[in-house]
């Protein structure tokens, strides 16, 4: 496997429906000017890098046996006793498979050493590692970042080792928290590249604002940072709580995923649901501001379609990196209203059969094979359309009690028009999946 494909920057929001979701990366017309006499910008970056140089690290995951690097990221020291912050996804191979991998750091001055994994926070993609080198200088957290009072437009500097090209400093702007997002992420207008994951982002005063974590593939200079607050909290936890035993890291990941999904589905429920209208049918939609929906139609298709299809896709756009093969924690809801234009009932049924293809299901290292159950269902009481429903699920091999679930429902009340509804949930407990699944089925009704 080549280095380039393994160097890590989580690409969390990789494929969204439309590029229009990208918020324009607006740079302030004038650079942020603090009150004191301000040196030219380039020299500010110079000073920040000079300060940061002994405090930043390259975090390397090596194959235990061959000693070759398997993936690379960055990190930075935040305490006198050598505790450093990086991303969970930088150390995930080691955390999930400590027998195969080991962790090492490389400092800008060329020193190398072993890293010890002390704590992980899968939900915020953070990890605390300990450098086997006493008396290292360290960073401090920016209190304004911790309290969330940093002004939009402030010039901040992202550091790390992109693509193993050498330690680098990148100027960018702080653009506040990302709108419409369940996970708290700072929107950083600057280039973040694979290999910089876990690296620090500091202001002019050398204090930590956030941690490099991801970028948008469909935008330019749209980067994301984990707010410093979560890093500070994790450091506290690593200091006070029981030390993480590496052999139990996998169980810890499972526990964190489970509590993440419990909180997520609770919040989703708390945000409330509403009934969306799709042709003559209604279906469940979330009122949460971070569930965004996009519509699509085939009306302008050439040659003229024989079935009119209007689709609405909604997604929580959440994503938790667990391993390079598992990105979880996402909920998608989609509704397609089909109306035959000149197809008969059989042809229309065929059209619907062709539209429900889905390749997912193969057994993999981290997920079991898929099991499905079908039935004709009348969910709920009152006068409502009958449904043809299919429930498919896969279990996470390493994380007991977590599943990927797909629920399909097709209305069966008319032969030449139908609503095809699909709910998919990743990394969900069975109880939460059934609860949302039931709500989803019961919400499919006739519009008055």
């Amino acid at each position, binding site marked *: 496997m080549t280095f380039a494909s393994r160097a890590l920057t989580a690409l969390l929001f990789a494929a969204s429906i439309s590029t229009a979701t990208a918020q324009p990366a607006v740079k302030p017309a004038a650079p942020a000017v603090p009150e004191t006499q301000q040196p030219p910008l380039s020299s500010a970056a110079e000073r920040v890098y000079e300060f940061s140089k002994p405090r930043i690290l390259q975090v390397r995951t090596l194959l235990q046996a061959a000693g070759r690097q398997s993936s690379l990221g960055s990190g930075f020291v935040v305490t006198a006793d050598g505790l450093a912050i990086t991303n969970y996804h930088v150390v995930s191979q080691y955390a999930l498979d400590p027998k195969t991998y080991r962790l090492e750091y490389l400092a800008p001055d060329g020193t190398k050493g072993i890293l010890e994994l002390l704590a992980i926070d899968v939900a915020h993609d953070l990890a605390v590692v300990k450098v086997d080198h006493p008396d290292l200088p360290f960073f401090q957290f920016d209190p304004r970042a911790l309290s969330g009072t940093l002004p939009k437009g402030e010039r901040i500097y992202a550091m790390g080792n992109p693509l193993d090209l050498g330690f680098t400093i990148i100027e960018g702007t702080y653009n506040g928290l990302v709108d419409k997002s369940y996970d708290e992420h700072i929107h950083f207008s600057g280039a973040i590249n694979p290999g910089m994951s876990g690296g620090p982002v500091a202001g002019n005063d050398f204090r930590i604002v956030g941690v490099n974590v991801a970028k948008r593939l469909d935008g330019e200079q749209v980067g994301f940072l984990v707010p410093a607050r979560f890093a500070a909290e994790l450091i506290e936890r690593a200091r006070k709580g029981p030390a993480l035993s590496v052999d139990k890291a996998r169980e810890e990941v499972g526990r964190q995923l489970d509590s993440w999904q419990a909180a997520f589905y609770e919040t989703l429920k708390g945000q409330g649901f509403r009934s969306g209208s799709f042709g003559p049918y209604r279906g469940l939609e979330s009122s949460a501001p971070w569930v965004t929906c996009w519509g699509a139609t085939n009306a302008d298709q050439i040659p003229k379609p024989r079935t009119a299809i209007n689709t609405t896709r909604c997604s929580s756009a959440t994503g938790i990196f667990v391993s390079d093969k598992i990105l979880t924690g996402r909920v998608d809801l989609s509704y397609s209203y089909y109306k035959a234009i000149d197809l008969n009932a059989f042809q229309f049924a065929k059209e619907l059969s062709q539209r429900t293809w889905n390749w997912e299901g193969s057994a*993999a290292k981290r997920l079991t094979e898929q099991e499905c159950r079908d039935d004709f*269902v009348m969910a709920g009481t009152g006068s409502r359309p009958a449904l043809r429903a299919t429930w498919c699920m896969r279990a996470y091999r390493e994380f007991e009690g977590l599943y990927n679930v797909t629920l399909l429902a097709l209305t069966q009340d008319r*032969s030449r028009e139908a609503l095809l509804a699909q709910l998919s949930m990743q990394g969900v407990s069975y109880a939460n999946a059934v609860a949302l699944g039931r709500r989803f089925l019961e919400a499919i009704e006739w519009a008055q």
Partner: protein
Amino acid sequence: MGAVMWIEVMSRHGDAVSRQRIEAEEATIGRAFDNDVVVDDPHVAPHHLRISRGEDGELVAEDLGTLNGLYREQGRDRTQRLPLAGEPGIRIGRTILRVHDARHPVAGERLMTPPVAHARWAAGLGVVLLAVLVALEWLSVTAEPTANLLLLPLLGFITVLAVWTSFWAMLSRIFFGQARFALQLRIAVTACIALLAWEQAAESLSFSFAWRDMAEYAGLGAWAVLAAACWAHLHAIGPRHMRAAMGLVAALLIAGAALQYLGKSESRRLFGQRATLGDLRPPAFRLVPLASADDFFQKTASAKKQVDLARTREPAGGGILSDMDLSD
């Protein structure tokens, strides 16, 4: 007394090559030209065999002192004397002979179906088959239906049917002497209609009962239809060697069905089931009552049980796709 016997020299395929009427009480068989029946077989003695009548008047074959001896047609034991009543076949050297007494009974007359009747049936069923095919094709067209789209698959189908029928006609020509193309075509067309009916029934019932496995394993039923078709083809060729041929066909078909079953269950183990609604039919095809949400989620609990069990097993290895995870 005027008793008559017939001595037939058989071909390897079981047809009589020559048939000689003997009006004497005795006959000799061998390579020499002073015999009543002359056989061109280097493994036959110049005077190999004498056929005479025993005390009860039945025919008896007798070895005249030869190197290679005298056997029943299918037997393995060399004998000196063979009574031929009821069992007319004997083997000397590599030659098979049959000796019949004129009093031997023969099978009754079989009613003949004239080839033209088979041809008419074949044509009639063929038209039905093509009409059904076009209709099915038309019912599953979701794009703009064009003549090409509807008729092109027919061409392929007709070609396969023609090759299949010709194969059996050729076998029939070799073993039965007549191709009987019309009869073989009639059988092939009937089998096709049965296959189509089976496939449609399996898919429709799979929808009607919301029973996924039915469509998944419908292929096994198709093998049974194929077996029946092969049996009918062989039967038309003739009853000789029927058991051996049928055994061979059955073995092949069972092997095919078993392989298909194994492939299916293997891919089920490797790839699991697909998140699809399956092959849908119009809502009126539903034959089961509507389940309540409670019933449905009771069913999904069994899926949970199954994937929980799968968690404890080693991941299935092998296969190109097994290493890929398409979950995102």
